[in-house]
């Protein structure tokens, strides 16, 4: 991604740009969800934590990061297994936490 002038010092790659676009899209989707269903759907889940949708997204993203790190540390590449676990984990967090 050379030739981007001011942004070249940031050493962008399409993969990292894709990751940040994904996070940004998640935040936009959460904002849209909040517009259609205000209040954040608070509840007390299986861990005994009071969470809103935003909290659940945060827990999903943070937990997924650690799942990927654990997968890398113990299993190495490729990361498909870690990705599958992270998706299941995020779904579980949104369903039960």
């Amino acid at each position: 991604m050379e030739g981007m002038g001011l942004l070249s010092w940031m050493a962008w790659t399409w993969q990292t740009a894709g990751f940040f676009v994904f996070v940004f899209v998640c935040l936009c989707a959460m904002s849209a969800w909040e517009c259609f269903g205000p209040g954040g759907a608070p509840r007390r889940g299986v861990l005994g934590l009071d969470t809103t949708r935003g909290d659940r997204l945060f827990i999903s993203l943070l937990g997924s990061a650690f799942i990927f790190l654990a997968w890398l540390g113990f299993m190495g590449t490729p990361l498909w297994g870690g990705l599958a676990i992270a998706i299941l984990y995020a779904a579980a967090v949104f369903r039960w936490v």
Partner: protein
Amino acid sequence: MNKTLNQKAWFFVLPVVALVAFNAVIPLMTVVNFSVQETFGDNVFFWAGVRWFEEVLRSERFHAALLRQLLYTGIILAIEIPLGLAIALAMPRRGPWVSVCLVFMALPLLIPWNVVGSMWNILALPDIGLLGRSLNAIGLEYNYTRQPFAAWFTMVLMDVWHWTSLVVLLCYAGLRSIPDAFYQAAKVDGARAWAVFRYIQLPKLRYVLTIAILLRLMDSFMIYTEVIVLTGGGPGNATTFLSIDLQKIALGQFDLGPAGAMSIIYFLIILFLSWMFYTLMMRNEDRS
């Protein structure tokens, strides 16, 4: 009554969002970009994938630095939080001594970190320092430049001296905000000092203690200046914490890729610990 939904207040948050974007989000994005690439300088980068993450996660050097960091943070939290709380409880609530105590307590916080490191460096020198020479004079073999235990002892002592005041000031502010009516009710019930502490002061201080623990947790994880001035990470690697190790990799060796990967892991650990502490303490608050 229907609530009016007014989202205009969000515009007032925009300056903060812009500020945070420039001083936190953009540098963090850059670190993420560095962490998946290799560079030999001249702003030329080569894709490396998750290789640096794998390398860092399997590196014994990183494991050792992380273990030292966790141990250090655990020790200083275990000392500073109870000690700060005890000092705050012992401080006068009214009268002329309040100002004197507050000024004395605030003094260590006003001293720049590199000066604190230099002060303790001189104080603890085994041949000319007051602390070092005194310890040797009473028969204790103390040399923080050669003995890992002595280096840790000096580091912990320096941190406690520097940062307990912050806990004291936070706890003192929390104690002052408890209305007198609580103490009067306790007196009417004949409550002893321990009962007043356990059932009035401690629950009322929960938010303040959460802040104190979070601040000290994050600060101790970021400790750099004092260590580099006092021990430089030594003797050997005895006081090489994550920040020191990161600095050695990023600036000493100019390995931006591994340093980026390590920074992200470091950031995630701090984020997780802070979130966990906050959530646990807020959950207890809700229950009480």
